[in-house]
């Protein structure tokens, strides 16, 4: 597997790429949080259009994200259906109004409120997912750790994240090698065997991976200690990108959007925008 497949980051020189990693991280977290909490449809549509526009600006090659998008779509549709399956009239409760569009079988009616609620959920997916994709595909993994450190995460934990990204390709290679070795010895993981059997047999792959990783942990921690990791209260970052004026502007925009979202909580008297009253 090439690193491009593992982490997605594609070097480019768009407006989005030129922003510092910290800016993107803050924007990603702040916008995701407000989109997750708000159920104001107008606001959500606004943010969705905005994030799709950013997505367009970031020029992420379609072939890199195609499979990801299909995954997300399938997941979204499945989740929307599940909500309906469990609470076909959840929208009616939320919006305290009931507009039946079609009587179905038993409790499975079709109401405008339910459709509207599920529309909101769908819009949420389509505004947060582009944000996540932009973050993953335009942020150099090397900037990740310093960005986390910048927003207040301790440098040790920040570096642990960096180590995870560093060793994923190596561990992935080990994993494939181990799986092949076990397959050659007749390991069967297909549905032909019983579930408990499948679970216990996966130990044949996980055990070697664990021992391999425990060795790796020992060596890596020695290597880091011998180069004085953890000696000081903080550390500098080779890849750290200081804030420029475009970062300030971007962050101001994000703060603006979040404030609008919060203001709408106040206007709507809650998280929901209710067109049915």
């Amino acid at each position, binding site marked *: 597997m090439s*690193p491009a497949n593992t982490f997605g980051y594609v070097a480019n020189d768009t407006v989005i790429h030129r922003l510092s990693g910290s800016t993107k991280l803050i924007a990603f977290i702040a916008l995701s949080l407000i989109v997750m909490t708000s159920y104001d449809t107008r606001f959500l549509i606004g943010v969705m259009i905005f994030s799709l526009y950013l997505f367009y600006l970031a020029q992420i090659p379609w072939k890199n994200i195609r499979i990801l998008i299909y995954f997300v779509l399938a997941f979204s549709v499945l989740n929307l259906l599940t909500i309906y399956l469990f609470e076909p009239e959840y929208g009616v409760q939320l919006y305290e109004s009931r507009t039946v569009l079609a009587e179905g079988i038993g409790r499975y009616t079709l109401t405008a409120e339910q459709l509207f609620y599920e529309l909101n959920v769908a819009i949420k997916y389509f505004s947060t997912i582009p944000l996540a994709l932009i973050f993953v595909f335009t942020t150099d993994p090397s900037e990740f750790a310093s960005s986390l450190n910048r927003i207040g995460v301790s440098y040790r934990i920040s570096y642990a994240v960096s180590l995870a990204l560093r060793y994923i390709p*190596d561990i992935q290679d080990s994993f494939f090698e181990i799986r092949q070795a076990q397959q050659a010895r007749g390991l069967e993981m297909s549905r032909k065997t019983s579930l408990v059997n499948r679970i216990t047999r996966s130990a044949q792959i996980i055990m*070697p991976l664990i021992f391999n990783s425990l060795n790796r942990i020992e060596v890596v921690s020695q290597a880091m200690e011998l180069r004085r990791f953890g000696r000081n209260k903080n550390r500098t970052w080779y890849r750290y990108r200081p804030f420029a004026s475009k970062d300030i502007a971007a962050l101001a925009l994000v703060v603006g959007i979040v404030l609008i979202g919060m203001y709408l909580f106040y206007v709507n008297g809650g998280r929901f925008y209710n067109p049915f009253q």
Partner: protein
Amino acid sequence: MMKQRQTLQPIIQFNHVHFQYDSQAEKNLIDVHFDVHPGETILIIGPSGSGKSTIARCINGQIPNTHPGKLEGTVTVNGRDVYSSSIFDLSLDVGTVLQDTDGQFVGLTVAEDIAFALENDCVEQTEMRAKVEGWSRRLEIEHLLERMPHQLSGGQKQRVSISGILVNDIPILLLDEPLANLDPAAGAETMELIKSISKQHQYTTIIVEHRLEEALLADVDRVLVINDGRLVADTTPTKLLKSNVLSEIGVREPLYLNAMKYAGLDVSSFPVLGNFMDVSLSDRQLVQIEEWARSIPKSEKPEGKGAVLEVENIDFSYTESAGAKTLSNISFSIQNGDMVSIVGTNGAGKSTLAKLICGFVQPTSGNIRIDNQETSRLSIKEIADHVGFIMQNPNHMISKTMIYDEVALGLVNRGWPEDQIRERVYEALRICGLYPFRNWPISALSYGQKRRVTIASILVLDPKILILDEPTAGQDYAHYTEMMAFIQKLNVENDMTILMITHDMHLMQEYTNRTLVFDAGKLLADTEPSAVFSNPELIQAAHLAETSLYQLGKLLPSMPAKDFISRFMQYDREVPR
């Protein structure tokens, strides 16, 4: 070279040092006493488990900080008492490059890894950039700064590790088995690099190794020989090579020296021994060597006993990765009972070939036949009944905690009855010399024994062909000899066909009758090992290095180097070790 330095204060002092790890029953170092002076290049040599790594850990402070134990005597490094110093403080005096290049490389990219220690010292970005740039240029890796570790070769990673130490302007450089993960070409380059930077920047350099001949390329001033925890020699390379110390403790002598001794030359008469390039041989002596070589009868090439593996016009391209490991138009056939080495750089396609033969991946076109049976319709499991693949890292194969269970696993998965499994497992364990340990946990075994467990776990499936990936990597001479004697026994007594992916030139020469050379996905040559060693183009393509034997062979008045090498090997095989 080191004359005037002797007058300086020693930079490292071991004063009658005894050491015992808390976790072990016996002392690992016994009365070790030596000095190292500033600017010296020291080679610490000895077989596995001799205590040479323990000495290294006493220098960089991993003893007692990471590996607690009882230390008697004193170790002083740059005026500091090691036992009462922290690893952090000592790391400002001693820069350590660990054996495991992947473990050592903790940054996401080359530049970050070089800067790692500077980041930890809170150095400002501009200063960091300047230092990283300067050192990467000096070590000729400035074009790699943006690369990630898995896009680098072993030799390149090694250079990054060394740069990551040098950025701190540390007086002492400590390298723990720098050759362990490198191919011969990269190993030779690393030694040259160590030589040039140590001389240029006046570093005190300590190299811990068990491969003497290659390590001597670093132009070492002194060799400390460790055996069973004791310092058995502290001398110059020349004096060491004239003595019998090496053969007594089981460290391999340089091959050219073997040849000289076989030919009856008096090695004690040479003023300088060590790196072959520094040894001066007279015309008369060369003639004597050639006459000796001529007296060895050339062996007959044994006839093939029918093809057991046929590879026909194989093409392969990875779809997921960057296409680095493609193979194109590969054809060869392996005779029953062959012992073949497969060589080439990392990414040349050797491992991909093994994976194709085992059915882990499918060729885009072409055929593979094992025992006249097409493998394309067989599952991985079915192919495994014919071909066993022993991976380089035994930890990738071992998934059980007890030896018996591990070896039995393949048969258990195949649903064999228990009594038959027992019989087969015991037989495989006997062949591998592990029968006495059959009820032991695997964690109690040495690395070499673990490798045997993985071989036993494949042998129970009774394959005709065994593919071994780097069977001798990281093993000292004694273990190497033991492992290869075992593989040879499988070949001769158990009638197995053996394919070995290797960088080990000794292994190729001594144990295989044929070599496949891969380069950039193509089969470049399919010939005798001695033909590879006497062909500079093949040596370069396969990332091998010129052996001292070839260098000696080239100097001979009339015998071609290829002839000389194969005659030497013929003779060497018959000398009792």
